[in-house]
């Protein structure tokens, strides 16, 4: 456990990280030249449609796949040169169940602790703590097959936490859970992050999840990183949408000219309605409406929409995340 001391370097650094798959004699670029730095203690979501390359990236960072080219360092160790040192430092909750279906949860937690070098007693104590913390007392001594989906997922997370990893990876943690269990899981991830200070990296194709959970959202599409910022800033940059209605096209045209004066605004008129998109427009809208009013351009209706991450995705890629999720790509099959 010598690797467990916290040094000050970043938790994850990738440079030109690339992975190709050969699918039916064709080369698919699942991840293309990813440059990413994640500092110790960050909570980051990889957001993108199915087959975007999120899971392939995660599998390279967790040593399950070797990069085709480029480098990745996790907790100070190179994933290709020293995979065992990386494995000692990380926790991994995959898309499947970490605990064997024929096993009992408690046995698996102890075995996982032993695999990470805990003494027998320490592994047993740690398993008991996690079982209590994750509310698994009633089911920890039952066969894993008899657990519900939500219980299994909590057990999977407990497995990833046995050794208090410096970096915790969660691959699509809430896929297959009902909304209630998904909310519980998000709450759990938030608490873990606050209380352990671990770096947490998760993949998701749920916008709401990335929005609710992560301080930093890395948007990935077609194997490329297309945005990397906080959800709030990504949305602010896109700007709010203010829809104004007037009682004539002429008034609408005049209003559109005036609204174009707002800093950073893009304005479209369609019939009697004017759409203004500008950063922070929800704060400027009252003044704009008052200004139009004094110029005799009476606003008859107003609607202000804050952008969603889906709008961000649409803006970046030209298609909505929901549409993109429905397309099946060869990368999805290979990853």
């Amino acid at each position, binding site marked *: *456990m*010598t690797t*467990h*001391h*916290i040094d000050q370097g970043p938790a994850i650094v990738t440079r030109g990280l690339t992975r190709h798959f050969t699918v039916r004699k064709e080369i698919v670029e699942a991840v293309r030249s990813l440059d990413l730095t994640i500092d110790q203690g960050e909570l980051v979501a990889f957001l993108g449609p199915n087959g975007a390359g999120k899971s392939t990236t995660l599998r390279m960072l*967790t*040593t*399950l796949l070797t990069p085709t080219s480029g480098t990745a360092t996790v907790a100070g160790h190179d994933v290709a040169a020293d995979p*065992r040192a990386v*494995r*000692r430092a*990380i926790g*991994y909750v*995959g*898309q*499947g*169940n*970490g*605990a*064997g*279906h*024929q*096993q*009992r949860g408690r*046995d*698996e937690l102890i*075995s*996982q602790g*032993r*695999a*990470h*070098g*805990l*003494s027998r007693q*320490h592994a047993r104590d*740690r398993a008991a*703590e996690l079982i*209590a*913390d994750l509310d698994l007392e009633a089911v920890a001594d039952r*066969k894993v097959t008899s657990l519900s989906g939500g219980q299994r997922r909590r057990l*999977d997370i407990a*497995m990833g*936490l046995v*050794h*208090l990893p410096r970096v915790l990876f969660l691959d699509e943690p809430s896929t297959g859970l009902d909304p209630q269990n998904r909310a519980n899981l998000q709450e759990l991830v938030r*608490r*873990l992050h606050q*209380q*352990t*200070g671990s770096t947490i990296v998760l993949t998701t194709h749920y916008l709401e999840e990335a929005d609710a959970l992560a301080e930093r959202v890395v948007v990935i599409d077609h194997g490329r990183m297309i945005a990397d910022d906080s959800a709030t800033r990504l949305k602010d940059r896109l700007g709010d949408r203010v829809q104004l209605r007037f009682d004539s096209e002429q008034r609408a045209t005049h209003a559109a000219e005036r609204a174009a004066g707002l800093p950073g605004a893009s304005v479209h008129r369609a019939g009697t309605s004017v759409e203004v998109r500008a950063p922070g427009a929800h704060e400027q809208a009252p003044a704009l409406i008052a200004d139009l009013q004094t110029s005799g351009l009476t606003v008859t209706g107003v609607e202000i929409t804050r952008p969603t991450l889906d709008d961000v995705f649409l803006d970046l890629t030209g298609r909505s995340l929901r549409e993109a999720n429905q397309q099946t790509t060869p990368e999805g099959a290979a990853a």
Partner: protein
Amino acid sequence: MTTLTATASTTQVADVPPSGFLADTWNVMTRELKPLWREPASVLFAMVQPLVFLGLFAPLLPSTPGGSALQWFVPGIVAMTCLMGASFTGANLSDEMISGSHERMLVSPLSRSSLLVGRACKEIVPLMMQTAIILVVVTPFSFDLHLGGVLVGVAMLALFSIGVGSLSFALALVAEGQEWLFWTVQQTLIFPVLLLAGILLPLDGAPGWLRFLSDLNPLTYVVDAQRELFSGMWNLDVIAAGFAGGALVAAFGVWVGVRGMRRA
């Protein structure tokens, strides 16, 4: 949730240095044994066929001049049980590859070779339990128990089952995503290997080509040695040939299996 943080400091400073191959192998083996420990009756699963043969086939055998038919038949059935159990075992790995627990172990610090060797070594435990069950069943009948020979025989079968188990795991790794392939290959290979080893019927009167194939089968030598040992006889040439057969299968199996696991 307070314990999540409370232990943070202790876990990060305490405990032993990175574990070695033996500790890893022990960890994998004991994990594999947990379900058997919790449900010992599951050991009967791989024994259904051998017990059917013992009950329905053995009575058909004519008495041999050298002794009872059971005395000849039982060592073969013990070897058959060993072959069945060890060759099925890859299916457990297949299940764990599908469910995700194999992937979880691949991301743990356990070495790749320990993941294979630990699993293969686990096969020794059901082998011993199954042998004991068979001996308990047949000893009241016309079967003489020679415990010393049986123990040496089980040691030989342990080598053989480690090898067959490793091959079964290698097959499961190759058949990832195509589980039908695992069963097709396993079922296709198992009966020729059984019949060519002379487990069900002696090959004394067999045509030359069949005897030739039988001579190539390592299990033939293992079964011959089992018959020797279970009868309390100690013909060292036969026993040495049996150990050589078992060791050959073990070495080849572990080599193939570890290569497969390293690539996983």
